C-alpha cells in the first residue's frame, strides 16, 4: 500500500474572524534546521489597517459584554486548547522546540488562560474604589478597557508568550491587533482557530504574521489604536514611543524576564490596559431640603 500523502496546512492571517491571506500576496519562508516548513504571510500596512477596523468594530460589543460572559469565553478558549494540545505540541516541535518543553509550554499556556479568565469579574472589585469626598456627593472610580490595543507579541516562547500577553488585554474588554512572533509564528495562527471556535466575537482578536520591522511603525502611528504592548523587541521602544505621540497612545513596555515565571500571573498587567473613570453624583442633604426627621 502506498504511503499516504500528508495534507499540509496553509498558514493564513486572522482578521475580523476570517482567515484571509495577506492582501499583499507576499510570504516569508519559515525554516527548521534549514528545511522549509511553512510559507508564512508577510502582512502589509493595509492588512494592519483592516485589522484595526475589525478591532474597533468589535470593541463596543466585547467591552459591553458582562464580565461573567467574557470570563466564560476565555475559559472556553482554554477548553478548546485542551482538545488541541497535541496539535500545539507537534507544532512547537515542528518549529524546533524540544518535545518535553513543548508539552510543558502548552500545559502552562492553557492554565494561564484560565488564570486570566477568572479576573474578568474581579478586577473592578479589587481596583475600583468608592471615594469619600468631603462634600455631599457619591463618588466612585471604576476601571474601563482602553479600546484597541496593539500587541507586539514576544518572539518566544511562541504560544505561552502570546497567551500570557494577550489574555490581560482581552479580559477587561479590549480588542487586540497582534503582531505575531516572527520566528515562531505557527502557534499564533493555530490559536486563531481556537479563538474562532470559542465564542470570541469576530474582530476581538486579529493576528498578523510578518516582519515586525515593517509593520510596527504603522501600528505605532495608527490614529485608531489606543495602546501598544511592546512585550520584547525593545529595540523598537523609542520608535514606538515617538510615533505614538500623534494620538498619545499608552505604551506599555514589557520587562518580563521569563514568561514561564509565576510573576506573569498578576492582575496589575490587566490594569495597564484600562482607564480609570470617576463618577460623581450629588446626595440630597435631608436637612438642606427642609424635610428633617
Amino acid at each position, binding site marked *: 500500500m502506498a504511503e499516504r500523502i500528508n495534507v499540509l496546512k496553509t498558514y493564513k492571517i486572522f482578521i475580523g474572524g476570517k482567515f484571509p491571506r495577506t492582501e499583499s500576496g507576499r510570504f516569508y519562508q519559515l525554516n527548521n534546521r534549514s528545511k522549509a516548513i511553512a510559507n508564512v504571510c508577510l502582512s502589509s500596512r493595509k492588512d494592519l489597517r483592516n485589522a484595526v477596523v475589525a478591532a474597533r468594530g468589535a470593541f463596543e460589543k466585547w467591552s459591553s459584554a458582562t464580565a461573567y460572559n467574557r470570563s466564560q469565553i476565555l475559559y472556553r478558549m482554554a477548553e478548546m486548547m485542551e482538545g488541541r494540545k497535541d496539535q500545539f505540541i507537534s507544532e512547537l516541535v515542528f518549529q524546533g522546540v524540544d518535545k518535553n518543553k513543548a508539552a510543558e509550554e502548552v500545559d502552562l499556556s492553557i492554565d494561564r488562560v484560565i488564570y486570566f479568565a477568572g479576573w474578568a469579574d474581579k478586577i473592578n472589585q*479589587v481596583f475600583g*474604589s468608592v*471615594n*469619600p*469626598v*468631603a*462634600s455631599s*456627593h457619591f*463618588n466612585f*472610580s471604576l476601571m*474601563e478597557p*482602553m479600546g484597541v490595543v496593539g500587541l507586539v507579541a514576544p518572539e518566544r516562547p511562541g504560544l505561552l508568550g502570546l497567551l500570557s500577553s494577550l489574555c490581560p488585554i482581552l479580559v477587561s474588554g479590549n480588542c487586540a491587533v497582534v503582531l505575531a512572533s516572527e520566528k515562531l509564528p505557527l502557534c499564533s495562527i493555530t490559536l486563531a482557530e481556537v479563538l474562532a471556535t470559542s465564542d470570541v466575537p469576530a474582530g476581538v482578536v486579529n493576528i498578523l504574521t510578518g516582519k515586525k520591522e515593517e509593520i510596527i511603525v504603522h501600528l505605532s502611528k495608527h490614529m485608531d489604536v*489606543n495602546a501598544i504592548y511592546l512585550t520584547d523587541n525593545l529595540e523598537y*521602544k*523609542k520608535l514606538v*514611543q*515617538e510615533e505614538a*505621540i*500623534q*494620538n*498619545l497612545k*499608552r505604551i506599555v513596555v514589557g520587562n518580563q524576564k521569563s514568561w514561564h515565571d509565576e510573576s506573569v500571573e*498578576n492582575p*496589575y498587567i490587566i490594569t495597564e490596559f484600562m*482607564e*480609570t*473613570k*470617576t*463618577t*460623581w*453624583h*450629588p446626595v440630597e442633604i435631608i436637612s438642606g431640603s427642609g424635610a428633617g426627621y
Partner: protein
Amino acid sequence: MKKDIKPLKFSGKWDFDPAPESVDHINLKEQYGLFINGKFEDPQSGNYFPSTNPATEEHLSMIAEAGEKDVNNAVTAARKAYEGPWSRMSAKERGKYIFRIARLIQEKSRELAVIETLDGGKPIRESRDVDIPITAAHFFYYAGWTDKLKYAFPNRNPKPVGVAGQVIPWNFPLMMAAWKIAPALATGNTVVLKPAETTSLTALKLAEIIQEADLPKGVVNIITGAGSTGAGIVNHPDIDKIAFTGSTGVGKIIMKAIAGSNKKSTMELGGKAANIIFEDAPLDQAVEGVINGIYFNQGHVCCAGSRLFVQESVYDIVLRKLKDRIQSLILGNPLDKNTDIGAINSKEQLGTINKYLKIGQQEGAEMFQLDCSLPKKGFWCPPTLFTNVSQSHVIAKEEIFGPVLAIQTFRTIDEVITKANNTPFGLSAGVWTDKGSKIFNLTSQMRAGVVWANTYNKFDPTSPFGGYKESGHGREGGLHGLTPYLNF
C-alpha cells in the same frame, strides 16, 4: 440726607455695593529668588521677570528665571535629598512633615487666597472657597498615605521612583502644586517643581511654608521661569519622572522629548468636555451647572464643560434661562467678594480667546455675551455663548480655555453619545437628567476620565482625576494617584 436714598427699582438688576477683600495682611517681597536646597537663591543667569496683576496690570513682584545651571542645581539638590534623609526617614515621620505643610496652608489660607487672586485674576470667592481649601486637603489626604502604601497595592512592594520633575499651569497655581507635590512626597520621592511664569507667587509662598515646616533641604525645590526652564527639567538626565499639567500640544512635545528614555510620566492635558441636558433634567439646576461648568475660573479649566448639548424639546427654554443667568453674572474686580467673573489670566490668553470669538462668528455661529462694561485696565472677556454651532466648527473642536460655550442640540441618546465622544479629548463630561438608569447609561458610555452627573466641576483629593485619549494619561488624586509615583 433722605434725598440720597435711591428709590428701589424692581424692573432690573440691583447693583451690589463693593465688598473687596483686604490686601493689608499679605506679605509679598519685591523680588523672589529660586527655592533650591532649602533656601532662596539668586538665579545664575541674573535674570528676573515681572509678575503682574491681570485685573489691573499693576506690577506685583520680580521673579527669578531659572537657567540650565539652576535647573541642574535643583535636580542635584533633589537627588541628594532623595538619597539622603528623605528615603532613609521612616514613612511615619515623612507623613508628619506633609501634615505640617497642610496645617500651615490652612493657617495662611486667607493670605494665599488673596495672593492667588492678585496674581492670577480669579475671583476671591473661588480662591478662598475652592483653590486654597483643596490645596490644604490634598496635602492632608496624602500625608496619611505615607505609612499605608502596602495596603494600597496588595501583593506588591512599592518603591519611590526618585526625583520627580513637575511642570504646572496657571489656572489653579497653588492647587496644581499640591496635586503634584503631595502624592510625590507621600510616596517618598523628591521634587523639582516649576510653576507657570504668569502665576509663580503662591508657589513661592508655598516654598516659604515648606521652609517653615522644616522639611529637609532639597526635598522640594521650586524654580521659576518660562517654557525653556520647563524644557530644562524635562530633558535633565537625572529626572526619573515627569508630571505635567498643561496643553495637549506641549504634552506631546514632552512625550517626544522623553521617548526612548526610562522616564515615567503623567500627563494632565486639554479637554473639550460635553455637558448634556436631557428634557427630563431639573432645568434650573442644570443651567446653574452649565454656568459653573464653563464660566468657573473664566473657563480656564481643562475639564470645563465647553460643549453643551441640549435635547431639542427643551432647547428654547434652556437657552432663555442660560441667557438670563449670564446677564446676572458680575464681572469685575476679582478681589470683590461678589464677583463671579474675574480677569483673563494674561494678555496672551485674552488674544487666544478673542481669536476664537472671531473664528466662531466667521464660521456662522451666533454669539451672545454678558452685556456689561469692561474695566479699562486689565484683560477681560465677558461670558460668551455660541448658538447655531455644528460638530465641525472650530469652536466645537478646539480647546479655547476661556469663558466660551458652544451649544448644540440632539434628539436621541445614541446621537448625543456619538457627538459627545466624537473628539480626540476625553477628560470629563457632564449629564443632567432625573432618570437614574439614563445617568448610568450615559456615564458608562462617555469616553472620559471624570463624569459628573447632575453636578459639575467638583474636585476632591480622594477622587481620581485624569483623562482618556489625548487628554493625557495617569491619574491624580485618590489611591489611583499614588501609582504614578511608585515603581513595583
